[in-house]
């Protein structure tokens, strides 16, 4: 097993009020099989032994399904691999002795808490305005009672794969959340159960996105490129359609 060394430049910032800066660290004796977060753990062990404040970063599952982790690695959210969360990124994807720049998600709507940890509750507030179905559904229905074509079911499932990590916002030059909102709208809008509240949901969630201070879409597709679930920008096109249709319907309502 080969061991590697990396030169890290890590964003350190005590809290949202103080100003931050990149601090150099050396990550030594790193195995190629370690995940990016395990590598940071090794660095933190050393920092703690030296009596300093360890680097703060978010994680929970470490298996790519919770969306807690999120680090901008060498200028790309979740690092160089497509369809990967930071926790599932392995050190074999880096060259030994490489300099790795590590930064937090940067967006006005994701205020920094400490170092690499940001507050993503703006996403929760967007969901709270309509990212659900509010009718009582009772017990799980018989699956074949509501026929849904396989291709539609697949698309809804693809949208539902969103783990809300915020990489789309971090990658977008406008810090726009339309891929997130699009996914959260479409996994419901594609289903029969989602129809009743479809218009209201689109209007409320997009308006909340605006109120939270996220930008608009410039159709660059960076979000899809960094999304660990590779959610397609076609859900943004659908968001545009749904929002405009709902807004026009509302305007024409007597």
């Amino acid at each position, binding site marked *: 097993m080969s061991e590697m060394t990396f030169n890290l430049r890590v964003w350190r910032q005590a809290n949202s009020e103080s100003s931050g800066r990149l601090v150099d660290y050396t990550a030594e004796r790193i195995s190629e099989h370690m995940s990016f977060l395990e590598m940071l753990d090794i660095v933190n062990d050393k920092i703690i032994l030296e009596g300093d404040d360890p680097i703060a970063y978010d994680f929970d599952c470490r298996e790519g399904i919770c969306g807690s982790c999120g680090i*901008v690695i*060498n200028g790309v959210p979740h690092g160089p691999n497509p369809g990967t969360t930071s926790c599932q990124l392995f050190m074999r994807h880096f060259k030994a002795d490489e300099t790795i720049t590590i930064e937090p998600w940067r967006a006005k709507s994701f205020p920094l808490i400490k170092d690499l940890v940001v507050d993503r509750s703006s996403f929760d507030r967007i969901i709270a305005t309509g990212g659900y179905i509010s009718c009582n559904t009772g017990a799980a229905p018989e699956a074949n009672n509501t026929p849904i074509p396989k291709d539609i079911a697949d698309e809804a499932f693809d949208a539902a794969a969103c783990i809300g990590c915020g990489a789309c916002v971090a990658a977008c*030059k406008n810090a726009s959340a339309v891929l997130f909102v699009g996914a959260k709208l479409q996994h419901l809008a594609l289903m029969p159960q989602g129809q009743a509240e479809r218009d209201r949901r689109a209007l409320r969630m997009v308006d909340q996105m605006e109120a939270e201070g996220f930008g608009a879409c410039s159709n660059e597709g960076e979000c899809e490129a960094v999304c660990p679930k590779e959610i397609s920008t076609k859900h943004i096109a659908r968001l545009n359609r749904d929002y*405009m249709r709902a807004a026009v319907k509302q305007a024409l309502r007597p």
Partner: protein
Amino acid sequence: MNALTRILNSPVGRKVTMAVSGLLLLGFLVAHLTGNMLILVSKETFNHYGHTLISNPMIYLAEAGLLGLFVMHFTTGLYLTRKNRAARPQAYERNERAGYASRKTLASTTMIFSGLVVLVFVPLHIWGFKFGAYYESAEPGVRDLHRLVIETFQQPAWVIWYVAVMTIVGFHLWHGFGSGFESLGLSYRKGLRRFGQFLAVVIAGGFLLIPVLIYMIGDKL
């Protein structure tokens, strides 16, 4: 919220405004280029074309429409860009393109700058030609625009300016065409993007060809 302001003043509405106005302006560019190409046919054809256009009273409606689209596009563009920038107050220390599914290009990141160049260009362009020197052609009442165009583009400074601006317009359309359709709710299609890029090259190439040709062989036109 008032329904109309909601439509216009939402992140989606602003982009729909950009797309509708931008794509209609692009349509105008195609028509404008086709008309301009008549200068390569003959002096008379070109002057008659210009005369026909301005003698139709509908021209005022068309001009007002174009002005409206243009104002709508650049005011929304400026406001949108300001809001988009405000969404990321602190820049990344290191920022790279993600590759893979990304369509980010030099053109897509500089839309506001290419747009601002057009914003400076258009008044100068109208001032230089529409409100430029009035020569009477052999036919009474018909303006000799041909002469003004030829005279203008025999000056290298004007040729360089037009070639530069048209190249920048090409950049704007390189991203703008495909992006516009996506803003209107069409999913990303590689073919449509490619077509938009082809169109951008044709439009920019066509527009810059005219001054270059006139500079090179103007006396034969």
